[in-house]
């Protein structure tokens, strides 16, 4: 899987939780939770969605590394050894 596919998958998982989000308008380098209204239940459901799609375990202690879309993609790529 290439990075672009991974990014598309992240945005798809996000759209599932927050359908009102315009993926084109998101700044991938800015904090995601500042741009999208995600409470902790939404956030958890988003991560569960990524887990279900990719089979990746995301421990709570790694949340700090998942601030922006770019960071989430980089984190998942690392976990999947892409």
């Amino acid at each position: 899987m290439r990075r672009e596919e991974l990014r598309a998958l992240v945005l798809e998982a996000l759209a599932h939780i927050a359908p009102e989000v315009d993926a084109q308008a998101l700044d991938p380098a800015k904090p995601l939770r500042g741009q999208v209204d995600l409470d902790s239940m939404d956030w958890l459901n988003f991560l569960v969605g990524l887990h279900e799609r990719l089979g990746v375990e995301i421990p709570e202690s790694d949340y700090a590394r998942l601030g922006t879309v770019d960071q989430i993609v980089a984190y998942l790529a690392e976990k999947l050894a892409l």
Partner: protein
Amino acid sequence: MIEFRMPALGADMESGKLLEWKVKPGDTVRRGQVVAVIETPKAAVEVESWQEGVVHELLAQPGETLPVGAVLARWRAPGETGTEAAASEARARISPAARRRAAELGVDAEALSGSGSQGAVTVADVERAAKAHAPAPQAPAEVVRAAEMRRAIAAAMSRSKREIPHYYLAETVPLARALAWLEAENARRPITERLVIAALFVKATALACREIPEMNGHFLDGAFRPAAAVHVGVAISLRAGGLVAPAIHDVPEKPLGEVMRALGDLVRRARAGGLRASELTDATITVTSLGETGVETVFGVIHPPQVALVGFGAVREGRVVATLSADHRASDGHRGALFLGAIARLLQEPERL
């Protein structure tokens, strides 16, 4: 013959729109089975039947808006064959022209009750049903829905503020132990079973209701009626605006993991549609958690006919402000203070929640 009526799915619901039947004539209906989907200003709600029977006839058509209490369908009680059973066969008669027109318009003619001779379904019946099905041409659905929801919230909250003499209390609750426990617990749980702090708030509130029962129940016909079970309504904001407060049933009896699953499930269904009627009407107390926005303290408005609402603000520096809005007709400040104290105490022993 059992009459299935338009239910009241909220304190101020006056009418509802039938979206879909989940049963057809001849089907057996079990107690608690979802039989219809009704649209209210707040959500499309799956409505259960609380009486068993066999579907005799469906009187309301999908697309029809009917007042609360209107008969939507009739069931034959178990063992009842009924002389009226013959009538239902007559109703199933469809003229060939009506059948053709139904196929053209995509209408299920079998599900219609006819106005023709001996209850036969006519072309006019089919066209009327098709028209009822068709989307209203006026404003976009979301705009109408948002305006209706605003009106429904306005009605319920105005009634609350008009009728309920609220009193308000606040207590700062230390959360260091709960947060440490949560962190350790989540580190060992798979992601699909991870907990959020709101689940602890819901469970602690429910257990506190067991200690101070004046907070749990309904004020009806001039008197407080305590509820035997504790069904906690959870305020959930909808992404398109507005909110709903569906209930998690029997919270004290549920292990924390199950409360969490129920909470996640309610949030998902509240936003995607598919809440049950019993979830919208059964709450005996409500919890609102607004802290994620950064707000420190929330003094909520009680959802009538309930008598109490517990609010949680932002978790900051290992603390949270818990508040109580309570109905002075049902309890006094002293009992309210004991109730908040019980919540605070229960949150100090998260492993026992």
